[in-house]
């Protein structure tokens, strides 16, 4: 516990505490629309954190993280709808499934020295394979979709993840905090140092005794296992799954925009990114609808503009600059 906060200045701890407090009381203050927006923000913060382990920490660009979201979602939804098994037990199946998938992709890529752009293409290819597979898997609804029985919103059943949005909000908030602490711990451990060394220079990492293949495998396994929860959450929050949507590359891109804009490889980048992008993109669509302009794809254009602005003006993302300005950086 002490290690997690080691080196953080007092004001950073205070800021973190205040931020958490705001998030804790938010559901009592805000309306239903804002709450649903907050749930989506937390969802992207969590999924971005999981993706960041692979790209931000280890330097392996996955453009197919929707694959792990989708597999996690389908695994838990299948256990629930077909066998009546609660999502927390289903989560174990989901984690096993996504980790196995991660191991397959990682093994194929890293054993045969596929890196950079080619690795990214491989991740896209796999998520497309699986999408097409699920499109034709009629037992799980095929392209027609898989639906979870919609719950009575007045009673919260945490064990079965059936209930009001506010319950989902707190579940996701808890998972975001857990993921943040977990990633902080990873980054400060030998594993984290070795990942960063691999990200910075593989040859030098190997010369310093790091078994590069094994540590890349750890990265893809931990990242895919963490992403499984995002999928389980998605399935039980939205209650419907369509291969066309959940495995789509657009979903993968949405996951990675947060950490990229917030700050690659940083712990708060994925959170800041998700908290900035989601409300802005949604607000913009709402605003345009309100003034009567209905342009399809306006969200995507907005994401593109944001990405351009960040690349040009804040190449390391929002968080490093923000942390320096607010003097929240960790002291060694």
């Amino acid at each position, binding site marked *: 516990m002490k290690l997690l906060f080691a080196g953080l200045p007092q004001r950073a701890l205070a800021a973190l505490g205040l931020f958490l407090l705001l998030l804790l009381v938010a559901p009592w203050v805000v309306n239903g629309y804002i709450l649903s927006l907050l749930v989506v923000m937390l969802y992207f913060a969590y999924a971005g954190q999981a993706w960041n382990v692979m790209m931000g920490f280890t330097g392996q660009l996955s453009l197919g993280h929707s694959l792990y979201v989708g597999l996690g979602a389908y695994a838990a939804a299948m256990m629930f709808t077909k066998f009546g098994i609660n999502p927390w037990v289903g989560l174990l199946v989901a984690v096993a499934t996504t980790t196995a998938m991660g191991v397959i992709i990682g093994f194929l890529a890293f054993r045969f020295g596929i890196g950079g752009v080619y690795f990214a293409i491989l991740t896209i290819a796999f998520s497309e394979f699986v999408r097409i597979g699920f499109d034709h898997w009629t037992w799980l609804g095929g392209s027609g979709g898989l639906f979870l029985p919609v719950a009575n919103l007045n009673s919260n059943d945490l064990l079965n993840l059936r209930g009001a949005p506010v319950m989902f909000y707190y579940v996701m908030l808890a998972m975001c905090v857990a993921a943040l602490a977990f990633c902080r711990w990873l980054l400060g451990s*030998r594993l984290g*140092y070795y990942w960063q060394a691999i990200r910075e*220079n593989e040859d030098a990492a190997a*010369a310093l005794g790091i078994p590069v293949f094994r540590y890349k495998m750890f990265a893809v396994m931990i990242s895919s296992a963490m992403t499984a929860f995002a999928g389980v959450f998605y399935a039980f929050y939205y209650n419907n799954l369509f291969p066309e949507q959940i495995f789509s590359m657009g979903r993968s891109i949405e996951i990675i925009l947060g950490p990229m804009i917030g700050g690659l490889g940083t712990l708060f980048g994925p959170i800041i990114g998700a908290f900035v992008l989601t409300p802005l993109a949604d607000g913009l669509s709402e605003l345009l609808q309100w003034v009567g302009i209905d342009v399809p794809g306006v969200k995507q254009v907005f994401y593109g503009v944001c990405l351009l602005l960040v690349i040009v003006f804040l190449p390391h993302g929002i968080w490093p600059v923000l942390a320096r300005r607010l003097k929240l950086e960790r002291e060694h």
Partner: protein
Amino acid sequence: MALLEVEGIGKHFRGLRALHEVSFSIPQGAIHAMIGPNGAGKTTCFNVIAGVYKPDGGSIRFDGKPIDGLRPDQICRAGIGRTFQVVKPFPGLSVLDNVVVGALNATADVAHARKEAMRVLELLHLADKARHPAASLTLPERKRVEVARAMATGPRLLLLDEVMAGLRPTEVDEMVAVFRRVNQETGLTILLIEHVMRAVMALAQHIVVLHYGEKISEGAPQEVVNDPKVLECYLGEEAL
């Protein structure tokens, strides 16, 4: 018994014979140098020892055990640290963290590794740069970070590939003093590739000379620098 025994190793890159039947050995606790003109195969020889390339033939034994064919990380864990001629720092990490990565080879405890890394940085006069990002250093400083990183892995044999290049004579003398001290205090065995003869003559007890991938001479420094074959291909007549 010799700590490192290289016997008849060869390495081809397609038509190019980079190394041919090269043999030498380094006793425990010694400092040896490898010299020769550019393209002689010195760095290839390091890369073969360090596991980057598999030798086409011959054998390499470290502390009596064969190590040829092992991966670079396995060689490092066996006790051989190396630097790269073209430096490969971790540019996004601080100087300290660069060295911590090396120190984690010897311990899994990060706090302990940080202490060890700091000790090595002090030894190499880099302590005041510990918090700087490695990308901000000058080339000679980055070379010293490479040395620090390799030393932090806790090697028994250190392979140094032109770490004195670009240093001023006084800085060369400083580095020479550091290596001599480490060698005397810890018994660390060192093999250095070096063009800076000032360092070679001050440090090495024994010199191996490569030319076109073959060993053309070896022996005590004074003998080697007076060897006509070495003078002809590398040092030049004026060295006399």
